C-alpha cells in the first residue's frame, strides 16, 4: 500500500486525509444504519415508549408530562371508570419541549379525544438540561419533519450534527441492545406506557422549597406550552392540566404564575393537587419526595378519573381560541437579565 | 585547587550522602543519573560541600547548577 503512494508529500497527505475521512463516513453510515434498525426493534424501555407515543398509539386518552405523568396515572383506573383507551406518553426528566414535539408527531397521525398534561411546579423555569435532553427525540428527526423546529432549540447546529448517522443514537447502544426484541420477545407491560414505582419513602416532614432568585421563566417554554395547549384547543381535544401531589411545597412559585396566565388565555382550569393534604400527609403513598408510588398513584388516579367523569366534557372547547393575550407579555416573563 | 582534585573530593561527599560506594561523578552527572538525588539529598549535599570547602553559595548559583561540573567549576572559582 505504501509503495503505491508516491509523489509529493502534499499529494500523499491529501490521499491519506481522503482515505481517513471516507473511512469515518463509511463507518458512520454503516454503524448508524445498524443502530437505527435496532433502535426501532426495541420492545421495552423509555425509547420504545417514545416510539409507541410518536408512531403507534391510537388511544383516546393520552398522558403527557415528565416523571410525575409517567408514574402517577394508572391505566386500569382510567380505562375502567371512563371506558376509554389509554396511553402514557410521559418520560422521566423531560420538559414541555418534549411534550410539544411528541404531540406534534401524534397529531400528524390522529386526534386523541382527551389529554392529561401533568405540569411539575418547576416545569417553566429555564434549565439547560431541558434543551440537552431533547436528544431523546433525535432518532425521529429524519422521519418527522414536524418536530425539527423543536430540535433546533437544542442548538442551532443540530441540523449539521445530524449529518452523522450515528449521532442521533449517541450513547444509546447499550440500551438499544438490552431492550432489543431478541431479548424481550413478549410484551413487557410497557404497552400502556405507564411505569409503576414500587417502594415507599420513609416518613419525614414536608419540605418547603423556595426558588433561588436567579431562576428565570423560560420564554421558549412558555411558547412551547402555548403551542401545546393551542394545538389541543384547535383540534378539539379535551385538555386537563394537572399538578400532581408532591411532598415538597413550593410557595410563591413564579412558574405557577406564568402557567396560570397561559391557562387563563385558553380558559383551561388547573387541577392542583400539589398541596392536597390527603396525599402529602401520607408518606406511605410516596416513593420519594416528588413521586407517588403505585399505591399512591392508584388513589390519585381514581380521584382524577372521578372528577373527569363529572366534568361536562361535551360543552368544552370551541369558544377558547382567544389570541388577544400576547405570549411575550412582559407581565409574567421576567426579562432575561 | 585542581578541578580534578575538586571532583575527587566532591565524589567522596556524594558517596557519603547517597550511601552508594560505587558512585563516580563526571562533569555531566545530574540528578537523573543518580538514584536518590532529590531535593533533600541535594541540599544535604550542598551544605556538605559548603562545609567541606568552607565556602558559601549564593541562592542564584545553587538554582543555576545544571550538573556536577557546574558545581565543581564554581567551587574552583570560589576557592581561587
Amino acid at each position: 500500500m505504501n509503495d503505491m503512494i508516491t509523489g509529493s508529500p502534499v499529494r500523499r497527505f491529501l490521499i491519506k486525509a481522503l482515505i481517513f475521512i471516507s473511512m469515518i463516513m463509511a463507518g458512520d453510515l454503516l454503524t448508524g444504519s445498524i443502530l437505527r434498525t435496532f433502535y426501532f426493534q426495541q420492545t421495552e424501555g423509555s425509547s420504545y415508549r417514545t416510539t409507541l407515543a410518536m408512531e403507534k398509539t391510537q388511544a383516546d386518552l393520552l398522558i403527557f408530562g415528565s416523571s410525575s405523568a409517567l408514574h402517577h396515572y394508572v391505566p386500569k383506573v382510567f380505562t375502567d371508570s371512563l371506558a376509554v383507551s389509554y396511553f402514557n406518553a410521559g418520560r422521566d426528566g423531560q420538559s414541555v419541549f418534549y411534550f410539544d414535539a411528541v404531540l406534534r408527531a401524534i397529531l400528524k397521525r390522529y386526534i386523541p379525544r382527551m389529554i392529561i398534561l401533568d405540569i411539575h411546579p418547576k416545569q417553566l423555569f429555564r434549565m439547560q438540561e431541558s434543551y440537552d435532553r431533547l436528544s431523546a427525540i433525535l432518532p425521529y428527526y429524519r422521519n418527522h419533519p414536524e418536530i425539527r423546529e423543536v430540535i433546533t432549540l437544542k442548538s442551532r447546529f443540530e441540523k449539521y450534527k445530524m449529518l452523522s448517522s450515528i449521532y442521533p443514537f449517541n450513547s444509546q447502544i447499550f440500551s438499544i441492545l438490552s431492550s432489543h426484541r431478541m431479548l424481550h420477545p413478549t410484551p413487557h407491560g410497557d404497552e400502556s406506557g405507564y411505569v409503576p414505582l414500587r417502594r415507599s419513602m420513609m416518613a419525614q416532614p414536608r419540605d418547603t422549597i423556595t426558588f433561588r432568585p436567579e431562576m428565570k421563566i423560560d420564554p421558549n417554554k412558555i411558547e412551547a406550552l402555548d403551542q401545546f395547549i393551542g394545538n389541543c384547543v384547535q383540534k378539539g381535544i379535551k385538555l386537563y392540566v394537572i399538578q400532581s401531589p408532591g411532598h415538597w411545597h413550593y410557595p410563591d412559585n413564579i412558574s405557577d404564575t406564568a402557567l396560570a396566565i397561559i391557562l387563563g388565555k385558553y380558559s383551561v382550569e388547573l387541577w392542583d393537587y400539589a398541596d392536597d393534604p390527603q396525599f402529602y400527609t401520607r408518606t406511605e403513598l410516596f416513593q420519594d419526595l416528588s413521586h407517588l408510588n403505585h399505591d399512591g398513584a392508584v388513589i390519585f388516579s381514581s380521584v382524577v378519573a372521578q372528577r373527569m367523569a363529572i366534568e361536562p366534557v361535551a360543552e368544552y372547547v370551541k369558544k377558547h381560541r382567544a389570541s388577544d393575550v400576547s405570549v411575550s407579555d412582559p407581565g409574567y416573563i421576567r426579562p432575561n437579565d | 585547587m585542581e578541578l580534578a582534585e575538586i571532583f575527587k573530593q566532591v565524589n567522596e561527599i556524594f558517596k557519603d550522602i547517597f550511601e552508594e560506594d560505587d558512585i563516580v561523578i563526571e562533569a555531566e552527572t545530574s540528578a537523573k543519573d543518580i538514584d536518590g538525588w532529590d531535593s533533600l539529598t541535594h541540599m544535604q549535599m550542598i551544605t556538605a560541600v559548603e562545609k567541606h570547602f568552607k565556602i558559601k553559595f549564593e541562592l542564584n548559583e545553587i538554582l543555576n547548577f545544571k550538573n556536577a561540573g557546574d558545581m565543581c567549576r564554581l567551587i574552583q572559582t570560589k576557592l581561587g
Partner: protein
Amino acid sequence: MLFNSFEFLLFFPAVVVLFYLTPHRWRWLMVSLSSAFFMAFARLDFVLVILSIIMVNYLSAILMERSAGCYGKKWALAASLILDIGLLSYFKYFNFLADNFNSLFDLLGLNLDIPHLSVVLPLGISFYTFQAIGYNIEVYRGSMKAERNLPLFLTYLLFFPKLIAGPIERAQNFLPQLHSRISLNFHNINSGIKLMIWGFFKKLVVADRIDIYVNAVYGNIEQHSSITLFTASVLFAFQIYADFSGYTDIARGVARVMGFRLMENFERPFLALSVSEFWRRWHISLSSWADDYIFKPIVAQKRYWGNWGVLYGVIITFFVIGIWHGPSWNFVLFGLFQAVVIFYELLTKKSRKRFRKKLTSPLIKGLHNHSTRILTFLFITFSMVFFKAPTFDDAMMILSRVATFETGTLFLGSLSTFVFAWSGIVFLVLAEIRREYGWFDFGFLSNKYMLVRLLKYSLLVLIILMIGVFDGGQFIYFQF
C-alpha cells in the same frame, strides 16, 4: 470557546488554513487575533485583563535587564509579581479572603463586613499569570533574555490552544518557537490530529461519562452506601485525570498541527509508586513550575535548617498548588495532604530503598510494587474527595460514610452509564500501560501499514460519536 464545542470544530480548521497561508512575519498577528476571538467568545473584557498582564510583564522584564544595579532589578521583579498576583487574587480570591477576614473578626467580636465582589473570573487567568511570573523570574535570574519583540511576547501569552487550561508553558521553551519560521509539515499535522482525537476520546468518552455517575452520587451523599461513595470517589480520580489530560492532549494536538510543541503535562500518573513520583507525573507544567519557582528557592535558602527547611518548602509549595485550584479551604487541605505525605516519603526514602533491596524474589518485589502503586492511588483518591466535595463538611461526610463499611448495595445509576464509564477506564488504563511498558505492542495497535493506522483512528472517532458525551442530554434520573 471550549474545545468540545461545535464552534471549535468550525474555528479550528479555519485557523489552521489561515495560519499556513499567512506569511511568517504576520503570523503573530493572525494567531493573536484568533486567540483574542477565541477568548472574547466568552467575554470581551477578558481580553483587556490579559493585555494588561502582557504589557506589565513585557516591560518589567526589559526593565530588569536594563537596570545594572541589584536594586532596580529587584524592584522591577517585585512590581511585576505584585501586579500579577494582585490581579489574580482580585479576581480569584477576593471573596474568599473577605469571607475569611469577616469570620476572623467575628471571632474577635468585631464586625468587619467586607462586601463580596461580583466579578467573573477571566478565562485562563490562573494559567497565564503563572506563565508570566515564571518568565519574569527566569529573566531576573539571568537564565533567559527578556523578549524585546512585543508581538511575539503577546502571542506567547495569548496563544489560544493553551489559553483555557494550560499547559503552563515555559517562556524559554515557547518563545524560541515563535522566533523560528514554521513551514507546513504534514508529519506535524498527522501527529497533531492523532493527539487531538485521543484527547477528545479521554474527555468525551471517559471523563464526561464518569461525570454523570459521580454527580448523581455526590449530589445525594446522605442517600448512598459506603461502597457506592467509594466507587464514585475512585471514578472521580479517573474523571479528573481523563478530563484534564484529555484537554491537554487536545491543546497539544492543536498546537502541533500549527507546528508548535507544547510541553507534556501528564505522564501516566496513576502508575506512580509514590506520591512524590505522582507529582512528577501529574500536571507537570504546574508541579515543575512550583518546584522551580517556589520549592527549590525556599529549600536552597533554608538549607541550614536541614529537614525543617524542606518541610517548610513542601508546605508552602503545596499550599500554593492547592489554592491555585480554587478559592476554598478544601483545595488548601488537598495540597497540605500532599505536603505531609511527600515529606514523609522524603524522610523515609533511604530506609524504604534498603527495604526494597532486601526483597530478592521477583514475585515479592512485584507484589510490593503493585501494593505501593495501589496505596498511592488510594491516597490520591482520598485527597481528591476534598477536590470534588463542595465543603469540608461534605468531604468529611463522604469519608466517614465510606469508613463505616456498612453493607449496602452498589448504586449503578443507569447501567449503561456505569458500563460505558468502566469500559472507558479499562481502555484508558490499558493504553497507559502499553505506553509505559510497551506491552501488547502487536499487530493492530502500531501497524506498519498506513491504512491500518488510519483505520485505528477512524474507529476511535466512531467510538467518540457513538458513546461520547456531547451535552447534558445524558443523565441519571434520580429516584429514591
